């Protein structure tokens, strides 16, 4: 067995109504130190986590949405967003944060982290994973 495993973090919850989105992100950040082959999937209400313009001042909670933009620095560069979930909610990619990473092997070119995929495509990505994290 190789020491590098394919990890998939599956996010299906909206932010703030429950803590799952935030505590899931905490695992991703800690997990980055273990240098696994990490992917994140945003399905169903999980897509709301990436909506830009979040302002939590009125509910007294910490706004953790800026953390998603830092994922690239943690070498978390594969962020799958399910197309059907976005469409059902009347959202487009323009409603989400623009997440990028810098490719060391390509003269630090800035590349998109978000991959907009259909459910069928994402199911194939799931099939290739070794560990699914659920919150």
């Amino acid at each position, binding site marked *: 067995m190789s020491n590098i495993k394919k990890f998939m973090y599956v996010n299906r*919850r909206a932010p*703030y109504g429950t803590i799952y989105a935030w505590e899931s992100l905490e695992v991703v950040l800690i997990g980055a130190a273990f240098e696994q082959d990490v992917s994140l999937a945003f399905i169903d*209400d999980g897509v709301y986590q990436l909506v830009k313009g*979040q302002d*939590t001042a*009125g*509910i007294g909670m910490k706004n953790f949405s800026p953390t998603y933009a830092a994922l690239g620095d943690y070498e978390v560069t594969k962020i799958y967003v399910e197309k059907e979930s976005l469409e*059902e*909610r*009347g959202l487009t990619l323009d409603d989400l944060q623009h997440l990028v990473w810098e490719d060391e092997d390509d003269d630090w070119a800035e590349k998109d982290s978000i991959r907009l995929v259909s459910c069928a495509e994402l199911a194939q990505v799931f099939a290739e994973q070794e560990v699914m994290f659920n919150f």
Partner: protein
Amino acid sequence: MSILHLVNKSPYERDSLDTAVDYMLDGDTMLLIEDGVYAAMSGGKAASKISGMKVSVLGPDLAARGISEEKLVDGVTVVDYAGFVDLVESNDKVQSWL
């Protein structure tokens, strides 16, 4: 006696909005809070469920989730926590659709 129907869950995740809508009578009001506010976003599939009903939405919960007021379904009014209190007072009772 009028009811304030509180819905705090996403209409895409749970059945609570559907049932709340079924139980709304003339003179009742619905208030969307927490993840319930997503029902008030125009363009979403759930938006049609509340169109034409007397619906308010909690502003601080909207802002937290990055939903600007121009994205709201027509006719939905935004209230703050003080307005939430006023809605509780102006209706005879509260039904939380947990």
